[in-house]
């Protein structure tokens, strides 16, 4: 009994992190219509900003976290402004944007490695994390915070998209970018804002990973891959599909290695991806084409 509860908890913890990454990734895809691979690197930007401000400069933790989220958001915004927007202006295809984002990913990762070295670092919170027991499984305070944040941010994002003028503009662009332009929506400005929000969420994801395990410049790639799989499972173009996909993926991965060796976790994740691509390419919540 204990092990099953623990596996479910492990799945939910991993899933909450995947969901945070998928949420922003999917939001960008919904508006800008391309796979922004640099999204993974922004998680590392968030994590390393907290490492720098919190641990190197010794600022209070909440200041460092806020700065980390802000910097990740700004870097994402700048990527859009100075790379993607220019390319879109030249009618570049989605493939070009994808390759450009892979380039941006590599450059950001290299810059982080140059500044901070490639060493694995742990982010400490300066206080002992509490451990709670639930039906024979254990979960830490930190992990509860991660799950809580994922839920809270999903709800906030839903409210934003549903009830604010800006949110409606985002949805309009997502439905039909040409029509949105015709009715006078400032498309580029809105996409810029979407990049800021999505990247800030990725940054928060990276910070949470930092507190949970640790940070290294290459952390973005595995997060990105899991985020992309979560997005495809959950439904591409629907931000909440990404959240659902993330949680499902976390659960499948961790329950999947109950009876087989833990080294096959990634293989399970990618097998699920292939199954979805074959049987339900639009994902669980995706619109049928």
């Amino acid at each position, binding site marked *: 009994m204990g092990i099953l509860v623990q596996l479910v908890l492990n799945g939910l913890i991993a899933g909450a992190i995947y969901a945070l990454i998928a949420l922003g990734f999917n939001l960008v895809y919904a508006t800008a219509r391309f796979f922004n691979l640099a999204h993974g690197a922004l998680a590392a930007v968030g994590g390393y900003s907290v490492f720098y401000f919190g641990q190197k400069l010794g600022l209070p933790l909440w200041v460092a976290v806020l700065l980390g989220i802000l910097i990740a958001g700004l870097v994402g915004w700048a990527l859009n402004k100075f790379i993607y927007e220019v390319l879109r202006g030249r009618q570049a295809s989605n493939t070009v944007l994808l390759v450009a984002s892979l380039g941006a990913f590599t450059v950001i990762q290299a810059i982080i490695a140059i500044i901070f070295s*490639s*060493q*694995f670092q742990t982010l400490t919170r300066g206080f002992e994390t509490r451990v709670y*027991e639930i039906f024979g499984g254990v979960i*830490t305070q930190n992990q509860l915070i991660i799950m809580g944040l994922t839920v809270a941010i999903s709800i906030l994002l839903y409210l934003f998209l549903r009830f604010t003028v800006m949110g409606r503009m985002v949805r309009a662009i997502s439905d039909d970018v040409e029509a949105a332009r015709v009715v006078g929506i400032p498309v580029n400005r809105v996409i810029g804002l979407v990049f800021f929000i999505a990247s800030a969420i990725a940054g928060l994801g990276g910070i949470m990973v930092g507190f949970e*395990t*640790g940070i290294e410049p290459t*952390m973005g790639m595995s997060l990105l891959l899991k985020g992309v799989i979560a997005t495809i499972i959950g439904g591409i173009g629907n931000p909440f599909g990404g959240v659902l996909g993330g949680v499902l993926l976390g659960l499948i991965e961790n329950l999947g*290695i109950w009876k087989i060796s833990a080294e096959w976790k990634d293989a399970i994740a990618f097998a699920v991806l292939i199954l979805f691509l074959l049987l339900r390419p639009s994902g669980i919540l995706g619109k049928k084409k």
Partner: protein
Amino acid sequence: MQKTIVVIAVLLVILGGWYLARSKSEPGNIKVGFIAPLTGDASALGVATKAAVEVAVEEINNSGGINGSKLKVIYEDGQCNAKAAVTAGNKLISIDKVPVIIGGLCSTETSAFAPAAMQNKVLVFSPCSSAPSLSNLGKYFFRSYPSDAYQGKFAAEYAYNDLKARKVAIGYHISDWGTGIKEIFETRFKELGGQVVAEEGAPQDARDYRTLLGKLKAAKPDLIYLPTYPDGGIVAITQANELGIKTKIFGGDGWDDPKFVKAVSGKGDLIFSVAATREPAGEFRQKVLAKTNGEQVPLCAPQAYDNLKMLAEVMKKVGLDPDKMQAELRSMHYDGVSGSISFDKNGDLTTVAYVVKRIENGTVVEIK
């Protein structure tokens, strides 16, 4: 006009190439290659090892060099992975044309670049690689660090006889080192009459060990054997602590790393086995600590220092001929800062002893 520019450009390239090629073979220097993880997993060990080699180079060059020639070490980053080590090895072998390479640190590095070195008759002298499979590399391979054939066996006997463990759960990093030591441990532990109740491997860059640990915990072992590298080990121990694992956890020599010890201290009942080398002391210790700003000289650094000192003696005596060098090194009995070193026919150490250390209060204490 354009033709002139082309001709000038071609001439410049040729002259430049000739100049570079010429300066490569400047007579005063003997080049030695060095491969260790200067970044990535296990980089804390690599950086300290590099410092130890730097100390040895300074000492050798300040006392006359190799019959008048100065030693020059070319440091390459093997990143504790096969791909980077092969790139580093190929550069040292075919571009720098070094006669000897000190390295790699991680067994993965050594098993990746050493075969090419063997073919090119480049002597490889590892200060740290311990995978049993390396024993068969060839006659130009030596190591001043014991093979895990000894460590895995020692750990199994210690677990069974001293810790009285009968049911062991094993979690390990899948690599030449981790898999090698696990297999020898398992075989010996079963021979002694013990039982392996769970066994889980993870890639060395994995950062989520919760389910792996959950399965080990569920098997209710008396002891968890966890031969991991330091970076992943920090995460694994932290998560084991969060999962409430109270079982004693027994690691390998990968844990003899100040960064690891500091990060996991207080997070469980932690012990590890490591080759009983002489505690680095005196001038050597001072010089390495001055370079690394550290508090402790980690494993492999003393070995690397001894490696270069031994090679210097060999080169003084027989020059740079690979066959003469390997014959001379093989017959050598050397008393260095890491202990006394002599080799068997595979280039392995002939005598090895291990000790077990406990991690407490941010440092390590030897268990007598």
